[in-house]
């Protein structure tokens, strides 16, 4: 590959999260000392623990002696990776080429978006501010190659402006941060090579013979002498965020504040990705109980966290059998493109709208809100609309429609004969007296028969003669005689 193939205009930012093992449990605003342990040894901790004097590597006994209110968690690498994936989704707001570098780093190719974000310094500022409000500590590294950016960030080097000569700028970086096998780094240190500058002065052939082709390949990609394409995350949006409580929450009402925060994050995610969602789920977990999860359905996709919160609260009130909670998470995976709609200048004013009715946008929003509230409290099946359907069988001439889908059948079914305003969900068999149908009293056949003989092709044939019948009390019924067995059934009421 040509040495000059490196695009000198490429810019990479690496987001390194040094505190991720702690932050999956406690974001950095937490006021309590939190430590993460592996086999009772502290491997990571938050700032508060550091201030109280706990050190990496000390045992939990020592930590408890130093500070008695320290909270410890066993390290969970799966959760770190999961969190990193969600941070990658967050970073997608800046550039589509985001790649995940486990264990704790993300790489962003920002070459194409520098102009949009008014330069790399401004972009870095935006990233820092965003992550700070989410509660994550980040070390940023910038360079012309992905691996160099990664190296800068992971080494915690003071940020330097991107130099066209990558190798030169890497000079002062200690070799111990290189992403290569430990024994290579050991050998290099034993050889007296502690910084990259010394390493780059060595002849490539010699390094190749001594450490193998993988090492020299790494160095070439690091310095941009070889192209280094990165595997970017797929653009399918996903959202999940959680908050772990350091002490168990026993009062479900106090979950409203963490929930509000998580839903605020969801709203920000939706706005940044120009998406709307119509469904999200809230999960309450505790180490000692099976988790409880509920889904919130919206009648129409939205991105309003206030509405999300109100609907979640309705469901939260109904959660029972959950005495304690130590983690709450919000996840969403159903997304819709947000329409590039313009705001309504006359929000509250009533106009004749496209559908010929006089109403305002605010009223439309209220109509949707009511449906949202009812679906949230009663469940998605308990609230629906009505539509005609393309069938002549009375029980199939209509269908319930979900108000989110609004799949109304547009045509009519051409039935012009009178239909009752009430239909029985299942026809009720009627007794007969001397051949005429009865229902605690004689039924007088008024109008009919209207023959409906339909559906013999789909194993649910309806072959019936419908009549309007008058009960002696004055009620009008819609009854039919089954053509095959000549039995009578009540199917509707002219209410």
């Amino acid at each position, binding site marked *: 590959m040509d040495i000059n193939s490196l695009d000198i205009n490429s810019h990479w930012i690496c987001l390194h999260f040094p505190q991720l093992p702690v932050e999956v449990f406690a974001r950095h605003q937490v006021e309590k000392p939190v430590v993460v342990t592996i086999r009772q040894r502290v491997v990571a901790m938050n700032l508060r623990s550091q201030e109280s004097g706990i050190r990496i590597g000390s045992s939990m006994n020592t930590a408890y002696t130093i500070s008695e209110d320290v909270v410890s968690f066993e390290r969970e690498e799966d959760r770190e990776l999961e969190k990193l994936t969600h941070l990658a989704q967050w970073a997608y707001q800046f550039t589509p080429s985001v790649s995940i570098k486990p264990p704790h780093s993300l790489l962003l190719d920002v070459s194409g978006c520098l102009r949009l974000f008014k330069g790399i310094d401004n972009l870095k500022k935006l990233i820092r501010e965003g992550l700070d409000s989410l509660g994550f500590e980040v070390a940023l590294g910038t360079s012309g190659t992905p691996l160099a950016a990664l190296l800068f960030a992971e080494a915690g080097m003071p940020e330097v402006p991107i130099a066209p000569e990558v190798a030169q700028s890497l000079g002062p970086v200690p070799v111990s941060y290189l992403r290569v096998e430990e024994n290579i780094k050991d050998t290099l240190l034993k050889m007296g090579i502690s910084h990259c500058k010394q390493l780059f002065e060595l002849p490539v052939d010699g390094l190749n013979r001594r450490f193998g082709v993988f090492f020299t390949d790494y160095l070439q990609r690091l310095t941009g002498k070889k192209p280094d394409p990165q595997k970017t995350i797929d653009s399918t949006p996903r959202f999940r965020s959680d908050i772990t409580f350091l002490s168990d929450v026993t009062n479900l009402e106090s979950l409203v504040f963490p929930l509000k925060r998580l839903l605020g994050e969801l709203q920000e995610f939706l706005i940044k990705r120009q998406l709307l969602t119509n469904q999200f789920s809230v999960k309450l977990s505790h180490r000692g109980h099976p988790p409880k999860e509920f889904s919130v359905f919206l009648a129409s996709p939205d991105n309003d966290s206030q509405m999300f919160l109100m609907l979640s609260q309705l469901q939260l009130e109904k959660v029972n059998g959950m005495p304690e909670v130590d983690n709450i998470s919000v996840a969403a995976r159903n997304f819709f493109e947000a329409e590039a709609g313009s705001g309504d200048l006359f929000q509250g004013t009533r106009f004749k*709208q496209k*559908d*010929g*009715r*006089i*109403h305002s946008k605010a*009223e*439309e929003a*209220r*109509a949707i*809100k*009511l*449906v949202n*509230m*009812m679906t949230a*409290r*009663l469940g998605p099946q*308990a*609230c*629906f*609309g*009505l*539509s*005609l359907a393309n069938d002549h069988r*009375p029980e199939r*001439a*209509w269908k*319930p429609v979900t108000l989110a889908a*609004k799949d*109304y059948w547009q045509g*009519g*079914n051409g*039935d012009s004969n*009178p*239909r*009752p*305003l*009430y*239909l*029985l*969900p299942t026809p009720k068999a009627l007794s007969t007296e001397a051949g005429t149908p009865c229902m605690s009293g004689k039924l007088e056949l*008024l*109008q*009919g*028969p209207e*023959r409906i*003989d339909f559906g013999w092709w789909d194993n649910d044939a309806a*072959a019936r003669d419908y*009549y*309007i019948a008058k*009960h002696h*009390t*004055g*009620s*009008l019924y819609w009854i039919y005689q089954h*053509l095959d067995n000549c039995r009578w059934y009540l199917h*509707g*009421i*002219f*209410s």
Partner: protein
Amino acid sequence: MGEAPPESLNRQGLNEQGLASDDSLRGLLEKTGLWRASSIDGDYKQHCSTGFARLDQELPGAGWPADGVTEFLHDRAGIGELRLLAPALARLTHEQSRWVLFVSPPYIPYPPALAQAGIDLTRVIISQPKMPRDYLWVLEKALASQSCSAVIAWPGRIHEKQIRRLQLASKEGYSWGILFRSGASSKNASPAELRLRLRPLPDSTPGYSQGKENSAVAVKILKRRGRWESEEFTIAFDDQLLRPMPDFSEMVIDQKIPTTKEKPAFDRTSNPVIQTLHEYQ
């Protein structure tokens, strides 16, 4: 919304002019909280014609109220209780973008019939709360939400205080609350603004003789604002539901003509296509 129709404005204006000379009477009206029955109509913000001239005549504001709770008391289903509402619901669904909400209807409000009555189905929603406490929650929230033009419910046993809450909610949300209750509840007082009793029409009703093609219902207004309860009167629907069946027994007698024997009107097996199929088999 919130404006009185021009007629009642005029009426009020005239009355005030008429009273301007009598200071003592005016003072009485202003200070003691007395109100005149004639000003009641003005309280009805927006009227929706019932679609039945006689009913409009009887109702304050010449139509269904735009808000407040209206009770329909009847014992049996199928006497025209929903047909009485249908013209108004059709208008509401076409004029407003708000919902018409049915809360736990006893049977399926049958969409083909609703469509025949001119009701825009895209404005109709059904809610089926399972728990009793959810039921009143839905009613109250929907009435107060300002997003329903009418909320129709079959509450069964409902307490007077609960109706009062619904009444307040419906005023808050400019929603018309419609409750279908049993005829027996007419004995109990209710805070509902308007109460109507519906009965099937006795066959011997004078002025509505046998042999008519349209069905009808007997309505008595038990409670309305500004007036006493009404006499029972008849509302006839334009539905032709009572059109008598052609007498098929006579057709059988007419079957002397030889050709009709081959084609009895409603015998399935005599269908020529099916017959040929049988022959083939």
